[in-house]
């Protein structure tokens, strides 16, 4: 069965630092992969998605993610974080039927000044 693991429940970084949020997946073929972000008291919003092709995908707010088939990973990165990036970040992939989206447990990001 498909699964997504985000090994870091919480990440704390200072403003201006670089960021990597980790995501590992389990899937028999090459999956579609998503990163969603949830700001306080809001629903989730799509940050970026990978379907195929270039393993590095660009998203909103200067986020990017790199797909690695050999490592079964889809890590999210940002070169320089801002305090407003503080939020919960979810990695996700659809099931093989495409009808359900499986989410990781989420990583709480706190950016301090």
């Amino acid at each position, binding site marked *: 069965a498909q699964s997504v693991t985000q090994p870091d*429940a919480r990440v704390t970084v200072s403003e201006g630092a670089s960021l990597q949020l980790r995501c590992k997946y389990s899937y028999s073929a090459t999956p*579609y992969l*998503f990163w*969603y972000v949830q700001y306080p*008291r*809001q*629903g*989730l*919003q*799509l940050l970026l*998605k990978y379907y195929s092709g270039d393993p590095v995908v660009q998203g909103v707010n200067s986020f990017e993610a790199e797909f690695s088939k050999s490592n079964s990973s889809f890590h999210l990165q940002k070169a320089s974080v801002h305090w407003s990036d503080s939020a919960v970040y*979810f990695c996700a992939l*659809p*099931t093989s039927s*495409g*009808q*359900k*989206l499986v*989410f*990781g*447990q*989420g990583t709480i990001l706190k950016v301090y000044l």
Partner: protein
Amino acid sequence: GGIITQTPKFLIGQEGQKLTLKCQQNFNHDTMYWYRQDSGKGLRLIYYSITENDLQKGDLSEGYDASREKKSSFSLTVTSAQKNEMAVFLCASSIQTSAETLYFGSGTRLTVL
């Protein structure tokens, strides 16, 4: 652009009570979803619906009923609220499948006394 509206934003109930959460979308999307969000556990799918009057059980459907009488609306009923239960219920929609972007409402926060 469209919007997903969830009502109420906050719901307080008593143990054993039947409680109904509502969701409306104006994207004209075919598929709608109900997710439950518990702290540290990510999002778990309760029910989804691929078209009007269709209902599909997710991984956490026990204790819940759902209804999709119109394309634009999807309601969720907690059949018997459990004491000390606290979670956020998120409604989402997509054009057709989870392989496309999901659009989320801002959630209903449930507290059971």
